[in-house]
């Protein structure tokens, strides 16, 4: 007979992560509603730190890493202990993990609003924070593996597989994508440039969705859904297939974010093929979740927790159906750069992540506080208001995406663009932006009702910090009975699981990236493409700092409609000195890849000071401080040296004369402004900004190639 061991589960960490999830969730959503309103009322960009370009990264980071991140940790800390029949391995590590993660969030919020950013979407945080993230992630990993290795249950339930794969893949993605060369404590350049940077970035970006927003939440689904329904998952076999197929296929799909760009064709095709295949495991998983409730639908009617789960899993199904569709080239040609993508992301974020998190909270909080939910009625209100919020958000955004895209592409019978003024296509969708803000507002109100309900529940309850329990110790050697299966080798052994997961996810990345990195012919060099001048480089860094890339792309696709609007389509060779790349992913404003020479310097001066003077009705924020503030020339030399290290061919010793060159070019711009009646010192930021904008796409201007008629 085995010995029965007494131990306790740590509920305190679970509770803390839960608190953090709903506090940061409210903050992230509030910022979301604010930026939604900024697109309708640009005057809401009232201070520098709260302009759209800086708040949008704050919103995405807050929702993904603060709200969902803490949601993951809450769910993992709760379920892992029960599934392993063991307390979290180290209380100290649990504490470090919790406070470390909250510190990262605070640092992220502060740096982002001050324009300290790497300019790579969802990986905007600068290098010291990147290192901190790595350390805290390792702490989490040690704590998790410690728990798994000291477990009292021989089998590793499938949820744990999802947690392990999440941990190892996120670690890999984060490290590879964050490789950067620091030039100061708060500024660095990506090690990769142009096409390569784009490929790494979207390999990361796509898999952040896969392995931060999806796989850990699937693990949670496989634990909390059966728990709340009080019945095992519909098919455990299916869950095994779901797991292996999902982690293996997901990692390949990244290039679908770069269709029709300057990325080599074979990589684009690879991304599409794997994206389409993804639908199978995703839907397998969704059906597995929903079918768990078969014969229990009467329960769903009464149990608000199950209602949240049902909508969450349905949203997962919708988003994962849509994802592969958006990866088809002809659909992507319409959807990309528009609000369609935003709609897609929010079905996932609000439906899948948001509702699953709230479902878990409604189930977990009463349990840990040994009480009943304060008000079922309020929870139901939250459910309905939230669901309406999702609909009011998503439907207008689909419409906006579709409508705007078709306006971009229409020609008159005479063969000229029907809507040559980009702004006209923006103003046409403002009503949809208003409805979206309303939908987002509803969702936020629902969440606040939920938080109120949970706080009331907490108040009336009595928290159980350590849940006493007992379980037999795990026998060291279990006799292998006949017919023991080879999969035992992995299914009960977490370390093997980790290694195999890592190998599987690494294969995808390696096969995709190595050729792009190593084969020179993948990025044809264009001899007329020259490094940026020091002034342009400073201007480029301002462009990154202000987050212009969240509204502007710099990537003209080879379509007749785009070439007619913006000029010659973009070539891979044009971006070889772009550390980091700035292709963007959303055109709230027009593409800027060939902005250089389109307008006189004075146009840009006036436009940056107040966009509506040059473009009446513009929703672009004004940047008046650029006219006041001096360029920080103390960094010029270091920036040039960093670029040289990264392989940009500036002459030896160029760093020493860089500032002279900078001033020379700045004086020329000042003189041109003066001719147009504008007095401006050559030391101001606006001068660098103008220099950069006027450089964009100039290197190969005038070249023309045959293009597809899309």
């Amino acid at each position, binding site marked *: 007979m085995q010995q029965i061991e007494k131990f306790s589960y740590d509920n305190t960490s679970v509770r803390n992560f839960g608190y953090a999830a709903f506090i940061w969730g409210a903050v992230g959503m509030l910022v979301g509603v604010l930026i939604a309103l900024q697109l309708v009322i640009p005057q809401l960009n009232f201070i520098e730190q709260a302009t759209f370009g800086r708040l949008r990264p704050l919103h995405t980071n807050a929702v993904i890493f603060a709200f969902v991140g803490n949601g993951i940790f809450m769910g993992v800390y709760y379920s892992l202990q029960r599934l392993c029949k063991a307390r979290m391995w180290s209380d100290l590590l649990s504490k470090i993990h919790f406070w470390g993660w909250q510190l990262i969030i605070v640092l992220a919020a502060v740096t982002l609003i001050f324009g300290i950013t790497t300019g790579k979407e969802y990986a905007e945080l600068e290098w010291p924070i990147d290192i901190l993230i790595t350390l805290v992630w390792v702490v989490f990993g040690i704590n998790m593996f410690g728990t798994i290795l000291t477990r009292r249950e021989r089998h590793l339930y499938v949820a744990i597989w999802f947690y392990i794969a999440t941990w190892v893949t996120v670690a890999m993605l984060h490290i590879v994508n964050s490789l950067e060369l620091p030039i100061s404590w708060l500024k660095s350049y990506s090690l990769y440039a142009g096409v390569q940077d784009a490929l790494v970035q979207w390999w990361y970006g796509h898999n952040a969705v896969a392995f931060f927003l999806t796989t850990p939440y699937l693990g949670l689904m496989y634990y909390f859904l059966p728990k709340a329904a009080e019945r095992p998952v519909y098919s*455990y076999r299916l869950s095994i297939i779901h797991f292996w197929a999902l982690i293996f296929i997901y990692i390949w799909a990244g290039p679908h974010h770069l269709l029709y760009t300057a990325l080599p064709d074979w990589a684009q095709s690879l991304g599409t093929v794997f994206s389409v295949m993804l639908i199978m495991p995703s839907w397998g998983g969704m059906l597995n979740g929903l079918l768990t409730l078969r014969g229990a639908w009467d329960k769903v009617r009464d149990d608000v927790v199950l209602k949240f789960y049902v909508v969450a899993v349905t949203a997962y199904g919708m988003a994962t159906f849509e994802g592969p569709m958006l990866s088809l080239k002809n659909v992507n040609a319409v959807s990309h750069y528009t609000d369609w993508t935003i709609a897609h992301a929010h079905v996932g974020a609000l439906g899948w992540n948001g509702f699953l998190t709230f479902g878990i909270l409604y189930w977990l909080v009463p349990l840990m506080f040994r009480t009943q939910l304060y008000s079922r009625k309020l929870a139901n209100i939250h459910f309905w208001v939230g669901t309406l919020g999702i609909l009011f958000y998503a439907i207008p955004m689909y419409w906006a995406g579709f409508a705007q895209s078709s306006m971009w592409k229409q020609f008159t019978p005479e063969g000229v663009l029907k809507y040559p003024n980009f702004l006209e296509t923006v103003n046409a969708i403002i009503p949809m932006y208003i409805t979206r803000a309303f939908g987002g507002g509803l969702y936020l109100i629902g969440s606040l009702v939920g938080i109120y309900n949970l706080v009331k529940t907490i108040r009336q309850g009595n928290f159980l910090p350590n849940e006493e329990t007992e379980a037999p110790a795990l026998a060291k050697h279990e006799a292998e009975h006949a017919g023991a299966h080879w999969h035992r080798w992995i299914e009960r052994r977490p370390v093997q699981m980790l290694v195999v997961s890592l190998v599987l996810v690494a294969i995808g990345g390696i096969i995709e990236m190595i050729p792009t990195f190593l084969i020179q012919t993948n990025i044809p060099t264009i001899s007329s493409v020259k490094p940026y001048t020091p002034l342009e480089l400073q201007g480029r860094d301002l462009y990154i700092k202000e987050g212009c890339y969240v509204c502007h792309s710099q990537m003209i696709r080879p379509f007749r409609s785009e070439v007619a609007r913006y000029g010659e389509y973009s070539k891979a060779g044009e971006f070889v000195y772009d550390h980091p790349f700035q292709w963007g992913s959303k055109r709230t404003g027009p593409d800027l890849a060939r902005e250089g020479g389109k307008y006189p310097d004075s146009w840009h001066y006036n436009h940056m000071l107040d966009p509506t003077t040059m473009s009446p009705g513009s929703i672009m924020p004004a940047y008046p401080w650029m006219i006041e503030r001096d360029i920080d020339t103390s960094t010029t030399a270091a920036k040039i040296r960093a670029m040289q290290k990264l392989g940009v061919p500036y002459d030896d010793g160029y760093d020493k004369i860089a500032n002279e060159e900078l001033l020379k070019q700045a004086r020329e711009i000042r003189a041109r402004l003066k001719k147009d009646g504008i007095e401006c010192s050559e030391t101001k930021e606006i001068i660098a900004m103008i220099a950069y904008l006027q450089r964009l796409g100039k290197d190969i201007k005038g070249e023309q190639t045959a293009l597809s008629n899309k």
Partner: protein
Amino acid sequence: MLSFIKKYAVGISHVEIYPKVALIIFFAVFLAMIYYAFAVDRKEIEKMARIPLD
């Protein structure tokens, strides 16, 4: 470091083979996994599925 690797690896040719390799690896993994999922003992499966509930 990157440029060091690059210098020696520019020789890799036949990128076309990469997608094919990818496909083969993919199917191998996929088949192995399906085989496993259906080969496991029913009792084992039921036991594992019940882990969260007890």
